[in-house]
């Protein structure tokens, strides 16, 4: 099993969710995130004064998938989240030793 984690632009969440559903993903965890990448934040001007936005708001998605589905899910996220601009985000995949469904006590792939 793999954990696919994506940091994306908040306004791409709906597109990514639709893409994940189309890819057969049944559940996803969504949370608010903030950070910076190569763009190192940006500068805004408000009422004539400049201020620096160091941490840019992003959305974090986490999806648990079978090993065989990891590449498809990653590609679905990348395609749906991509705008081609700086700050589109990152997706990474890490192995998962085990998963348990709390309600039933099932483990492994059965718990996905």
């Amino acid at each position, binding site marked *: 099993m793999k954990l696919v984690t994506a940091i994306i632009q908040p306004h791409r969440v709906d597109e990514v969710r639709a893409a994940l559903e189309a890819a057969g993903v049944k559940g996803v965890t969504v949370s608010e995130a903030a950070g910076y990448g190569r763009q190192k934040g940006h500068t805004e001007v408000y009422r004539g004064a400049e201020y620096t936005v160091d941490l840019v*708001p992003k959305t974090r998605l986490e999806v648990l998938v079978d090993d065989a589905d990891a590449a498809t899910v990653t590609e679905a996220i990348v395609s749906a989240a991509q705008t081609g601009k700086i700050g589109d985000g990152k997706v990474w995949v890490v192995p998962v030793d085990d998963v348990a469904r709390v309600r039933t006590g099932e483990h492994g792939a059965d718990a996905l």
Partner: protein
Amino acid sequence: MPSRNGQFHEGSDAEVPHPEGVRDLKRLRRDLAETLYREGAPGKHRRRTLSDLVVQALAAHWDEASGGIVEGAALGAVGSLGRGDAGPFSDLDVVLIHDGRTLKSTEVADLAQRLWYPIWDAGLELDYSSRSLTEVRQVASKDLAAASGLLDLRPIAGDKELAKQARALIYQDWRAAARKRLPELLAASRARAERHGELAYLIEPNLKESRGGLRDLVSLTGLSATWLTDRPHGAVDDAGAHVMDVRDAIQMHLGRTQNVLGRHIGEEVAEAMGFGDPDDLLASLAEAGREIAYALDMTERGARRSLERSGVGSRAFLARRRARAPRHTVVAEGLIDVDGELALAPGHDAAKDALLPLRAAATAATTGLTITPTLLETLQRCPDLPVPWPPEAREYLRELLRGSAHLIAVWEAIDLAGLVVRALPEWEGVRNRPQRSPIHRFTVDRHMVESVVLAAKARRYEVDHDLLRLTLLVHDIGKRPGATDHSVDGAALIPGIAARMGLEEGIAADMELLVRQHLTLADLATTADPDDPETVERLLVAVDGRLDLLDTLRALTECDAKAAGPKAWTQWREQLVQTLYVKARAVLIEKGGPTGG
């Protein structure tokens, strides 16, 4: 250990009595409750009948367990059983009282065992204690919860004179320690509110522990037992009875003790209570909870004032009392300040003064004076405001909304008195309406008032703050049962509201636009690309290309979200909103568009 004929002997291997009196009590109580429900017995009668059944069974049990002791020891009911308002599956709250002389301590311990074990064996939940008369007084003086329960002490069996004496002494001590008890009672109420929230605003309310719940109802009685003040009756008693009816319906549905109206049983309990929609049941509970909380606040204030005036025998206080006569100051037309309370001025004819309710509310909000219950009753007899409202009425409303520090308390008072709905009939549709979104912590009506309060913190926005407050007051007015898009439905109500209030056409149009678009900035900021000129353009179209409305929408968005709850206005969300707002503002300034309507 007492034998079945009431004689006592030493040892722990004594015969446990056959629990004749309570053996079938659990089943009998449930059967009787079902019969009473089937027959449609009123809640008060049902609770009294069930409590009587329990008391009779416990009396029979006492006779068996004690061998008919009638001197030196007594069994008493406390808490809800003592008051006669226990639920169909409520715990049995009982106390074994002894005079400390007639029975030896080992005999008392044996008697207690013979009383409590059969009750547990019968599957009943028991909350018990065993104390001498002296211990009863000591515990009552130190433990507020125990003292509150003991105030309801009802003799069941045994030496009933002893139980009555205990009750009289508890009351005597309670009154003597009123100065100490009052803050304790109120601190306990506040702690419960902090831990369990407010009954009026919870989706899953705890009917016993939440603010406005049954414990606060008991606190009311505790306050009046100090003899410092009387407690209100009528509406608050009806509210208490309603909360108990819902608690009983929950217990009947679950077949056990439970005080929380969980979401999973909402529909069943609502149906049992005759409500077609669980939200209507929650709305009725909100009304009841507000009534109880308000009554507690008023009673508390009365007790405090009484303490300040009388000093309950303190010479220093008596001296102060002589030195300071009650203040009577005219604070507005027809209204006087009487020692911190707002009252009707002598000779003022409220029946001819349609502006009085709004004037009183505005005065209370700006001065912090509490509207007396008598004045609230008087305000209900004032004539309706003419349509359109005269300019003074609009100014009073503006003053009321500006009084952010006291607005909530004043609004609660006038709303419970029915004055808000009289002035603003559309309020009825959102009154006590629960919100099932997890980000919301208040009912629709309270949320709107809370958002007005928060407008005081939005002073950095250079906007028409009266327009902002007025719009916030009605921004969710469309969240009525059956609404599909509350922004659109709410905007449709604004022309009627504005015409009744006599607002200028321009202000009415701005309010309508802002109510319709009150979610637009937050929605676009979180779901659309802020770098896309199309996103900015959509926002500018929403505010009619006007800088003043964009600024007002920004302030409104923040107040609305903050009033909803901490989850609705995170740093993450604020940053997204601010980014889009700044971009839109820059575009408008560059265009040199209109700044005001």
